[in-house]
């Protein structure tokens, strides 16, 4: 990927249009109103598609949806009892802990491998770099649901190539090994592999794009002054690419914590969903599956709170670093 000149991290000073001073009064009012008129449609659509449902969801999380509501009774306000029920349920904590560990592991693995690949891409010959880029773009572009289908086939207990390779390597215990049913751990290992396989390319390619912004002459000067590889990375390269790395890490955490399609689809090949639920599928099975809208809404609110807590500091950091405000 070649560098785009417009992405120079240092050049963040896009100057605002100067205030139009020599204008008549009415057209100045029009100019002042312009941004708000421009924002009318986009804000309206987002408010309709996300804002209003979010508000209803907050209300629903304080309501009870039982059998009576399925026959048209209006839901009853129960205030915080959905929340207390959730927080005192051991299974909720199991799923939350499972989700957090899964998110941390996937995000860390993705960032580690992605940044490693980006550094590697800088050091290989041009032809190999192009090969690696093409391959990564393909993995990145593969639709999630197709990727899950492919990996499901590859880890299939009877016809899977993974087991066949492992058995050929002499690991006889993998003959007919059922990855998706054996244990929660092996299920999540497969899910994690699908996710890391698909999300590493974005990290690798974006980090590589950021790395190409680093001025070679500065790095070489440091090398001449005797700075080793690690020191050069730590003090010169890292500060320059940090905003990009932070953004990528936040996105990984957000995407991995809210993962749904992969888990749901893999659950179709596994045994009980109870043993393999993460927060996303837990909400789905409670709400759409079980019809318990109030409880599911409260769960969703708790999940949103977890996301905000996890990412808030970094979003603010990004705001400062990237001149967001």
């Amino acid at each position, binding site marked *: 990927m070649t560098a785009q000149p417009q992405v120079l991290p240092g050049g963040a000073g896009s100057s605002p249009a100067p205030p139009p001073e020599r204008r008549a009064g009415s057209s100045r009012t029009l100019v002042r109103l312009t*941004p708000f008129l421009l924002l009318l449609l986009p804000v309206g659509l987002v408010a309709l598609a996300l804002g209003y449902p979010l508000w209803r969801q907050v209300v629903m999380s304080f309501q009870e949806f039982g059998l009576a509501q399925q026959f048209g009774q209006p839901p009853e306000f129960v205030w915080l009892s959905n929340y207390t029920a959730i927080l005192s349920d051991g299974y909720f904590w199991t799923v939350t802990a499972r989700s957090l560990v899964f998110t941390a592991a996937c995000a860390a693995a993705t960032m580690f491998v992605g940044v490693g690949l980006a550094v590697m891409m800088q050091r290989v010959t041009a032809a190999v770099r192009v090969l690696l880029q093409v391959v990564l773009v393909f993995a990145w572009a593969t*639709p*999630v649901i197709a990727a899950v289908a492919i990996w499901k086939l590859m880890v299939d207990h009877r016809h899977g190539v993974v087991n066949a390779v492992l058995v050929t390597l002499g690991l006889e215990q993998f003959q007919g090994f059922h990855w998706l049913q054996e244990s929660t751990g092996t299920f999540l290992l497969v899910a994690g592999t699908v996710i890391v396989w698909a999300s590493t390319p974005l990290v690798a390619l974006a980090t590589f794009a950021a790395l190409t912004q680093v001025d070679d002459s500065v790095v070489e000067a440091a090398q001449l002054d005797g700075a080793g590889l690690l020191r050069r990375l730590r003090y010169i390269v890292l500060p320059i690419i940090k905003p990009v790395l932070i953004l990528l890490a936040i996105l990984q955490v957000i995407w991995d914590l809210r993962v749904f*399609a992969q888990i749901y689809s893999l659950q179709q090949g596994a045994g009980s969903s109870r043993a393999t639920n993460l927060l996303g599928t837990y909400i789905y099975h409670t709400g759409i599956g079980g019809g318990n809208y109030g409880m599911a809404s409260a769960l969703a609110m708790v999940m949103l709170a977890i*996301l905000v807590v996890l990412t808030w500091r970094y979003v603010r950091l990004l*705001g400062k670093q990237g*001149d967001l405000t």
Partner: protein
Amino acid sequence: MNPTSRRRSKLVVNGAAIAIALLWIFPIYWMINVSLQPSGQMRIDGPTVLPFDFTPDAYLGVLNDSSFWTSLTMSLRVSLLSVAVALVSATLAAVALSRFRFRGRTGMVVAVLIIQMIPAEALFISQFRMLSGWGLINTVTGLSLLYVGTVMPFIVWMLKGFVDSVPADLEEAAMIDGCTKVGAFFRVTFPLLGPGLVATGVFGFLVSWNEFTLALVILSSGGRVTLPVWLQSFQEGMTGTDWAGVMAGSALIAIPVLILFSIVQKRMASGLVAGAVKG
């Protein structure tokens, strides 16, 4: 480092990179490999590296399946409608955020970032109930509305980076030459945004094309589903799984995406990075 050991380490890095590339492409190779096998071959022979008996049977099977075509039409309608609406309104928002300083602008930029954090799973229950209250369950309009909301923040984020990258000085110069502010934007900046709009539009299209969660929830009646939901139910429907068929279906969904994506990925990545480092 002397030249010999440097050459050797270069060789090692290149070798490792090629190995990783092969590892990463393997699932896609495997999809195509299995999709070209006769459907029972895997059950009899187990996994085989090359399809020795090349056959397009699995593809013909899918292409002769009317449910595939219904789903393809549905996917196209939803994706095109979503991307058209999202692109027009996101351009307006990007211009407002990039070219104007106004009260609440900072809040808007932060909001764009925060909205992306709301998980689809946290909203789909009330979205489902909202659309069901309006009679929009199982409709292109209903699903598209939700997709517009989903892709808008990211599209605004990317487009804002592209608008930022066109110097405002150019517009000012045009205004000195007698253009109005709006005229200056349309004559100067807008043509330069072309590639960015294409990249962003393709991105939005792909998000809608690939989306699974909301499609699963909103398109609850069997017949009218998008391709990802179709592929999921296609797998479930296959007892004793026809892997060749599933892989052919996966390939038919993935290949247009791979082509479109390869064309614009460079601009998408730089748009993302530009959004990250610019105000």
